[in-house]
């Protein structure tokens, strides 16, 4: 198999999923790139996680009220779902359509919202925005439940336009006016949840969406230049027609799946890194009737995505660090104790899943890294990569041994870098790693003692690779 096929497939599986073992990368590369993209784009044709086994061994995940169980159950799916893109897309929407447990105060509602992203995240963007506006968690999180015909609350109306669809502006112009925000909020009056919160005196029960016609402002409105007795779904129709929405989605997809862009508030004034790519995605948005899956298909099969220029051009999110490490080393590939502790790790690295810091979401790219989170990332990954009992690490040792009876330090380092990625590192990094390997000389694995030392040195080298700055990119 050609090395470039493996490298490209590894890139696809890192971006359209949470990475993979070398066995899986090779198997997918054999099936072919386009076939793999098609399988990723059609999760319903693929087996899902084995829900019956989860119900048997981890019944606490089912309709769990506690946030911890919902986060754990999601991490389990990131690691184990054969429908990798579905989970990656759910995370994509969670990072844009931010709502958090800190206010919603119900793990179950958060779990329901993430499931909605799985179910609708690759279909029509119009349907997705409608589902979002019918989501009780979101209606509560952004105070639409406090927005009344006689007493307007603009929070959801504003964020729907600013953060969920049009964006503040593009090509230096603004995409909507303050009047549009008010009209948008008026159109969503009466879109409410029941039962009311705080849940005194009876305690918490699941929410449902409830439309209250008496509280809905049914009068004539002018929104983005169009006049009528608009309600929320009409607003969504008008929003979806706007070129700004196509731009917004295209830039978000590029930023999440292809390469780090500047932070979102800078987008009005900062042109995209790759204008041609954005244009291609915008065109697909309209040609396909707002279809997200169609945009993703164009993206993953494009030259700009396959280009070597965008490999490792993204700082991994904490979810990618944690799920990706476990997939590489092959731990928690079945239901077993200990996932609770691991599900807390993204939080230690600055990404409290299901609880984004604000409605604007996490700051991504280099802002994932500070002196606290970098220590957490390095120690988590290097502890796992140095554990030579892990199935994925045993496989790496076997593959290195198969390279020859005796390895030079330089070949050994290159082999390790290849098998954890293939990871691209700077020359100075490679020289430091090689100089370190040289101190103990060539590596053989003929005798049991040699094999044990070979294994030990592999674990040690992988630990140091996990500690490199380059390993922070995916």
């Amino acid at each position, binding site marked *: 198999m050609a090395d470039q096929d493996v490298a490209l497939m590894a890139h696809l599986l890192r971006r359209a999923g949470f990475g993979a073992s070398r066995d899986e990368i090779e198997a997918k590369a054999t099936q072919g790139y386009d076939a793999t993209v098609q399988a990723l784009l059609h999760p319903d044709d693929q087996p899902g996680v084995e829900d019956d086994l989860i119900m048997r061994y981890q019944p606490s995940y089912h309709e769990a009220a506690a946030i911890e169980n919902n986060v754990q159950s999601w991490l389990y799916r990131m690691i184990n779902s054969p429908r990798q893109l579905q989970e990656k897309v759910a995370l994509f929407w969670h990072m844009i359509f931010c709502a*958090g*447990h*800190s*206010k919603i*105060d119900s793990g179950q509602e958060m779990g329901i919202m993430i499931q909605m992203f799985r179910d609708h995240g690759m279909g029509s963007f119009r349907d997705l925005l409608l589902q979002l506006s019918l989501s009780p968690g979101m209606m509560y999180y952004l105070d639409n439940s406090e927005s009344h015909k006689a007493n307007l609350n603009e929070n959801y109306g504003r964020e729907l336009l600013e953060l969920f669809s049009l964006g503040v502006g593009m090509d230096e112009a603004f995409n909507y006016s303050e009047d549009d925000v008010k009209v948008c909020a008026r159109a969503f009056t009466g879109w409410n949840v029941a039962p009311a919160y*705080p849940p*005194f*005196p009876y305690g918490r029960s699941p929410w449902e969406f409830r439309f209250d016609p008496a509280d809905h402002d049914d009068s004539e409105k002018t929104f983005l230049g169009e006049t009528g007795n608009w309600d929320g779904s009409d607003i969504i129709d008008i929003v979806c027609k706007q070129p700004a929405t196509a731009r917004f989605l295209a830039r978000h997809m590029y930023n999440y799946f292809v390469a*780090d862009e500047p932070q979102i508030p800078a987008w009005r004034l900062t042109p995209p890194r790759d204008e041609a790519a954005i244009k291609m995605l915008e065109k697909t948005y309209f040609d396909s009737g707002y279809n997200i899956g169609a945009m993703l298909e164009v993206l993953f099969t494009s030259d700009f995505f396959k280009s070597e220029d965008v490999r490792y051009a993204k*700082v991994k999110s904490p979810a990618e660090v944690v799920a990706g490490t476990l997939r590489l080393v092959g731990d928690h590939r079945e239901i077993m104790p200990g996932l609770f502790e691991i599900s*807390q790790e993204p*939080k*230690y690295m*600055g990404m*409290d899943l299901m*609880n984004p*810091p*604000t*409605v604007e979401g996490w700051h991504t*790219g*280099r802002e994932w*890294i*500070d*002196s*606290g*989170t*970098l*220590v*957490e990332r*390095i*120690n988590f990954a*290097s*502890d796992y990569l*140095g*554990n030579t009992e892990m199935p994925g690490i045993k496989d790496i040792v076997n593959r290195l041994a198969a390279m020859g009876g005796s390895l030079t330090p330089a070949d050994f380092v290159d082999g390790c870098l290849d098998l954890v990625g293939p990871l691209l590192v*700077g020359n*100075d*990094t490679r020289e*430091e*790693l090689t*100089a*370190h390997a040289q*101190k103990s000389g060539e590596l053989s694995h003929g005798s049991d003692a040699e094999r044990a030392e070979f294994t030990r040195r592999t674990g*040690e080298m992988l*630990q*140091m690779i996990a*500690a*490199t*700055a*380059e390993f*922070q990119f995916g």
Partner: protein
Amino acid sequence: MVSTKKDPVLAVLSLSGGNDGLNTVIPRNSGLYRDFRPTLGIPEDQIIPINDELGFHPAMGPLKKFWDQGKLAIFLGIGYATPSYSHFRSMDIWHTCEPEIIGTEGWLGRAIKDFDPSGENVLTGVNFGRGLPRALVKDGVPVASVGNLETYGLLTGIDGESQRNEALDVFGRMYSPAVGRGAVLDYIHRTGTDALKGADILATAPDNYTSTVEYSNTAVGQYMKNIAQTHLAGFGTRVLYTTSPYNSFDTHANQGQLHSGLWSDVSNTVENFFDDLHEHDAADNVTLFMFTEFGRRVSDNGSGTDHGASGIAFAVGDHVKGGVYGEYPSLEPTQQEDGGNLKSSMDFRQVYTSILEDWLHLDASPIIGGKFEPVKFF
């Protein structure tokens, strides 16, 4: 403004989960307290009297000693208007001083920035516990977050001291500051160098520490010991922060037993902590602040208590002017709000103002976002 021999230091212990204020500082003569706490009310003869009206939970004996010495400030009815009953949101409000909008910067992150604007000392602020509390978050402020001081560092999973030291040497060289690798890589290299520097310095703290004090083996005991060790090591740390983990004060059920255990641990640990500092003649410049995100419902639920509003906070230290500050919120049913909660009578930012201005000698209003009448307790 207080003057200390060495720069003033703030230690914070967050009692996460929502401590039941009503059973911590008890309105011991109130008939309503008895009415609302049929199961969880503390029997009169077990309450440790503070004054004619108030008393401590029976497990708080060690804290009573600080009270007797005039070194314990008790803040009654502390909270903020329009309470949130969510742990995380309410904690965020205490951390960011932003009750209206969702803030991203912490009040102590801003204080650290004022102490050390260019981030020269990577240990100006240190947190004990995993993950950085929002209180300490601010762009450009390096704060070490230490799960366990004994084992803190980079590449801690490498077996064998010499192997690990070699790996750390390689790490130091790989991350050695250089430019031209690209903006993001350069930034990560600088951050890695900072982290390594912080870890190297912190690692020396336990080695140089001896004490006759034995802390309890709980998370609170060990984290407070780590705070003492770091303070005694003299790294120039000004803010030391830790949290009683796992939302442990969230006593919805079985509160009688749980709450006793929690306060016994916290009270003993506070005593150990100050004994330790005094043993090393290092207490003069330390104030300890303890708070929780909210109090609990006035009525017990038969086994525990549910989320409530205003609560109790404490400050301890040689320069603290002992006393009871603020008013106990009324237990009268007509005075309760939102279905049975105590109304707060003091804004937490009044206490922060005093801590920042009188103790840390910083300008409070840019840090907490406004002017609040300080509670003068120094």
